[in-house]
């Protein structure tokens, strides 16, 4: 790791200004991904702006919904009664991610900024368009068991590794950001992007912007489940994960919101499946039909072909558990 300049920012404004002065710098919050990447030489910021002292740790109910500060710690959000009671899907997603220690370090904003865990991205001696644009995609014809089946490009088939983000996508959250040009809001589903021709860009943050928080609108979802299928029982990234949130009245589905993790460069909303489910009764048959719709357009790259089969199974399973059919 190169040595770098380290400064502590005392306000959001100061943080943004500090970054503007050194464009090869970056923010550091929990550090759980950034320090890892710096150790492996994947990234080498020359200035780190420690933002941990910024007043962005709140978890509070507002008229707009639940406001979570960008620096709220994953484990604290997960254990927060407001979250557990009113947004159980988010709490479940947090609990499924990483380890107790990492959840004590990782922040909500940092979780959103996580880089893909693609091996080719991490190994600087192998090609990766995301790390080094133009070098090629090592995973495309390489080991791609963990990789995307939706929305990939021939430049990049990496997936976003977060669990939290999958739940936030399903919960229709909004991201608040601050930057040199002021503050703005980004729909959570628009925050992360697909790789296209620019896999080096993970999200739609503008240069110099900082995440200040997320807002989850109040919801009427009364059936929630976060299902994560992985290679071991804990402390592993998802092969497939499904965030399922439904409003069910009697047997009838009034609202449905579904997102998947481990399948795309961003949390993948299953809009066709959601549309199908609204107005239907909560049955395994309907869940299966929804899953079939959800998987349309999916593409395997070899080692990850199993995901084409596992994805619909996971969708049905998550819906069955959420609705108590299983």
């Amino acid at each position: 790791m190169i040595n770098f300049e380290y400064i502590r920012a005392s306000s959001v404004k100061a943080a943004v200004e500090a970054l503007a002065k050194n464009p090869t710098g970056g923010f550091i919050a929990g550090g759980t991904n950034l320090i890892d990447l710096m150790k492996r030489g994947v990234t080498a910021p020359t200035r780190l702006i420690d933002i941990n002292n910024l007043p962005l740790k709140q978890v509070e109910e507002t008229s707009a919904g639940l406001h979570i500060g960008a620096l709220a710690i994953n484990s604290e959000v997960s254990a927060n009664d407001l979250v557990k009671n009113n947004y159980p899907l988010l709490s479940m997603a947090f609990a499924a991610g990483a380890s107790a220690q990492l959840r004590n370090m990782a922040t909500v904003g940092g979780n959103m900024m996580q880089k893909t865990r693609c091996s080719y991205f991490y190994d600087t001696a192998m090609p990766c368009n995301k790390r080094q644009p133009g070098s090629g995609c090592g995973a495309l014809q390489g080991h791609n068991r963990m990789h995307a089946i939706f929305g990939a490009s021939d430049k990049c088939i990496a997936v976003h590794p977060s669990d939290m983000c999958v739940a936030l996508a399903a919960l229709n959250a909004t991201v608040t950001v601050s930057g040199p040009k002021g503050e703005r809001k980004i729909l959570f589903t628009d925050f992360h992007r697909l790789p296209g021709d620019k896999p080096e860009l993970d999200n739609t943050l503008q240069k110099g912007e900082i995440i200040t928080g997320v807002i989850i609108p109040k919801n009427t979802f009364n059936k929630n489940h976060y299902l994560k299928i992985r290679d071991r029982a804990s402390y592993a990234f998802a092969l497939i994960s499904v965030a399922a949130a439904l409003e069910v009245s009697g047997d009838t589905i009034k609202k449905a919101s579904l997102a998947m993790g481990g399948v795309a460069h961003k949390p993948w909303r299953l809009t066709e499946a959601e549309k199908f489910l609204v107005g239907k009764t909560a049955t395994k048959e309907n869940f299966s039909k929804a899953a079939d719709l959800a998987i349309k357009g999916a593409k395997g790259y070899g080692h990850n072909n199993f995901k084409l089969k596992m994805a619909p199974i996971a969708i049905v399973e998550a819906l069955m558990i959420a609705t108590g059919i299983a």
Partner: protein
Amino acid sequence: MDNNCKNEGRRDFLKKSTALAALAVASPALVKAGENDEKIAALFEKIPLNIEVNGKAFSLSVEPRTTLLDFIREQLHLFGTKKGCDYGQCGACTVHVDGERINSCLSLAVMNEGKKITTIEGLANGEELHPMQKAFIKHDGFQCGYCTPGQIMSAVACINEGHANSRDEVREFMSGNICRCGAYPNIVDAIMQTKKEGSTHD
């Protein structure tokens, strides 16, 4: 030393090696950043750090890039905290920061300004072992002993967090600590017993 000359040399070399279809060992990001490194290193070699470790206050200077783990081991010579992966993937480096368990390999020392750190060396009360340490011995919650400090720090926190209400809960909340010798069932035994017998605060 004249930086420009040095960089010229490297570029010449890279040109030559490109002809041989070679890749640099260092990533392009590093090579690029390294061109500024001499200046940066000169300006920001070390910065002050005030930190309390096991009840003892330290005021010293550290390089920003020094992790909390390496700081504890190599500068404070507290070798009880272990390096098992250095990437946040094993839990051997678990310490408490202001009472919360974290992986010290993924935290920079300078990020812990003003914080209170507890390592395995700070857990016992003099000669009197912490109940969790005693329980690990009684239940043989280790073999080689390398992951043990991390396991014990994690186990104490696991109970303090309220995550030791059942064996299954303990197993999930202790999954951030890998034990390759496979002492897991005994570790769960040790935690359940300590929990049953009460107080565990450090």
